[in-house]
């Protein structure tokens, strides 16, 4: 078994944790053999999502693993919070749309940076965002 195949979990409860999330994903991405540009794209997406989890979700957790599918390897990060959730996910993905004082690039940007992006949310039942980047 290669390192990273088992899932690792990290709480997202403070600014420190956002930095920790970036570091953890960076080291996994290196292990899995993502190119430097793809590492940077994934870590940037993770940074946006971790901050979203902290700021909009009131904290939560990140789970990361190195999935293997159809003979290819990748890195996957799942962000979960039990915050207020969103009524209109499509709107949240629109660039420039924001509830806070950010740029509103977080979700839409993360979607563009990842190879696979999944958003599950509903008002009152929290938010789960999954991003995956495959080794090319």
């Amino acid at each position, binding site marked *: 078994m290669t390192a990273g195949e088992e899932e690792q979990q990290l709480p997202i409860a403070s600014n420190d944790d956002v930095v920790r999330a970036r570091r953890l994903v960076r080291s996994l991405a290196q292990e899995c053999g993502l190119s430097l*540009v793809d590492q940077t794209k994934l870590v940037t997406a993770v940074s946006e999502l971790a901050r979203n989890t902290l700021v909009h979700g009131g904290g939560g957790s990140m789970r990361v693993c190195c999935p293997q*599918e*159809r*003979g290819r390897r990748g890195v996957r990060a799942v962000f979960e919070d039990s915050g207020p959730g969103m009524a209109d996910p499509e709107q949240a993905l629109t660039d420039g749309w924001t509830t806070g004082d950010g740029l509103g690039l977080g979700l839409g940007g993360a979607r563009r940076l990842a190879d696979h992006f999944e958003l599950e949310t509903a008002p009152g039942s929290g938010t789960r965002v999954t991003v995956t980047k495959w080794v*090319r």
Partner: protein
Amino acid sequence: MPDGDVNGARLVELLTARREQLVTEWVEKAVPTVRGRLGELELRQELGELYEALLGGVRDARNPSDLHDDAFGEARALLAEISRSRARHGFTPWETAVGLFALKDVVLTAVDPGGRNAEYLAFLDFSRLLDAVGLFTFETYTRAREQVINDQAEQLLELATPVVKLWEGVVAVPLVGTLDSARTQVVMEKLLQALVDTGSEHAIIDITGVPAVDTQVAQHLLKTVVAARLMGAECIVSGIRPQIAQTIVALGIEFGDIVTKASLADALRHALRSTGVQVDAPAPSLEA
């Protein structure tokens, strides 16, 4: 009628009489091998058709175990179609074959319901092993071929995108051939890295050798220029042929304030001037 034909006829009878049940059992056994990449209805349709075609072949062929017999023509066509669609869905040859081999178990259970013939059962286990042996060599072979193809594709990418230093502070990348997304990405990364390595503030992207520019390629070029600018360097796009200029305008792509030149020579002169180099004689240019 040779002896074997009597048993063969019995088998055809069994396969015909119990087709519904056998196909259902086959689908049940095959479902786990597709791991959700194919719907059960779709799988049932596929295997049902294949079952009928195989049955027809076994009934009519001179040698019922010769897949190359004319009577198996339809079965072969269906198998080719299944293989193609499986490959597209990302199945390995192994997974595809195991799904088909499942029919053996199903038919054996029908022929010998109680499993009374112990020797035959033992042989079947051994036959499964031989199937696996065959598949293993087959899959290793395919993987080796795939590796060769991937390596070549990568080499082609590397070969086709050289970044050259034209002058102190000026690098250029002459693009030749069709630009796709993957290739443009490689070009972009190489060019930007060359800017850092050589400390060049000017980059020329020459597209004289690019036959056509579509929206996507134009977008990629734009992104490269913007990324270079973020790093503190300027890109000039040169070698835009008249028909490409027409396409770009017709597509409504905004090239914004990007400097474009008709020829590489013009672009170089422009870059040199802005780095403060005196250029006296006008360089020969395409439109002159």
